[in-house]
């Protein structure tokens, strides 16, 4: 194989310019790198808000969520050439984000939540964010109360239950996708989700 010539199958197929049966043209290393950089830039642009939203909901800390989002994409950029496209880019990025969150937790030696809660906004403050929509004032107050109750229930969940819950009801991921992202079996995901939603329901019922 020539030193300056590479044949990146993933990059070439992603351009959708290759018809079936057409011979793969070898690309120069520079051209392949440029193409991969453009592809990665578009991935960042489209998925960064979602990753940030997931981390913000997990941590309730804007600065920490921003930092971990940057680390996530930095890590993804370093390993972009190893991404084979077996799963979607979003699944891959979400897995990196969850691992970073776990690492951060471990590095803090179980003081993570203490630190996070010190910097994180309170449940009531987080509940203030609500789009106006077309609701009247009474509905707005009711909605805010419900959001506060969900936050309270989420706060009481274990880390794994919280992750599964947020992936399902905030990111609206399918169960098999959540299983792929978290590395759990689908049955375990269902069990975690059932407990988490049960807790939310109990919280909502308790104040009804």
């Amino acid at each position: 194989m020539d030193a300056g010539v590479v044949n990146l199958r993933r990059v070439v197929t992603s351009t959708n310019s290759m018809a079936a049966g057409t011979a793969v043209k070898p690309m120069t290393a520079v051209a392949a790198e440029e193409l991969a950089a453009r592809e990665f830039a578009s991935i960042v642009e489209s998925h960064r808000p979602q990753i940030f939203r997931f981390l913000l909901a997990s941590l309730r800390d804007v600065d920490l969520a921003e930092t971990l989002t940057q680390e996530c994409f930095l890590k993804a950029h370093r390993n972009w050439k190893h991404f084979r496209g077996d799963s979607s880019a979003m699944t891959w990025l979400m897995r990196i984000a969850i691992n970073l969150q776990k690492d951060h937790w471990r590095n803090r030696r179980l003081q993570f939540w203490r630190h996070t809660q010190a910097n994180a906004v309170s449940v009531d403050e987080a509940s203030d964010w609500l789009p106006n929509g077309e609701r009247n004032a009474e509905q707005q107050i009711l909605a805010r109360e419900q959001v506060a109750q969900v936050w309270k229930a989420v706060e009481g969940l274990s880390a794994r239950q919280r992750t599964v819950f947020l992936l399902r009801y905030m990111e609206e991921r399918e169960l098999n996708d959540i299983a792929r992202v978290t590395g759990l079996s689908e049955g375990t995901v269902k069990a975690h989700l059932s407990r988490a939603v049960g807790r939310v329901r109990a919280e909502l019922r308790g104040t009804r």
Partner: protein
Amino acid sequence: MSGRNRLAEVEDDPIVAGALKHFKASVDAWSEAAYSQPRSAVMTTRHTWRLAATWALGCLLAAGSLAGTLYERHVQRESARIAAMKAAIKAVEQRAALVHKTAEQPVAARTNAAQPPIAAKNASNEDEDLLATVDSDVSRQVPAAMEPLAQLMESNGAN
């Protein structure tokens, strides 16, 4: 009832479904606001100071440990030198004590030890006489070839 059915039942609860919908809308609104908010890089300076302080502390610790090691080595060398000096002084003192002890021994004992027995003295005198006789006999019988030299020596001795 399986977990899936339980989950479906809970999700179908209108109050839970409404609360989850509001929750998602709330997080979306918060995330959008936080994402578009510009951020200042105040932490950079603090990180620089922290880094500098860490380096300074590290250098101080390294210098301290090096100085401690050198001091320890110096102390060990000094103690070894002092021990060697003490050992030398002790050896000199022991030698002096031995000399002093030898000087104080009785003179009679030393005299007896110095004088050889009479029988041995007589035997040695006899040996000396015998050797002198042999020498004179041998010197008288000079070979013919050495005769001029013998005469020359005799004449020199006479002069």
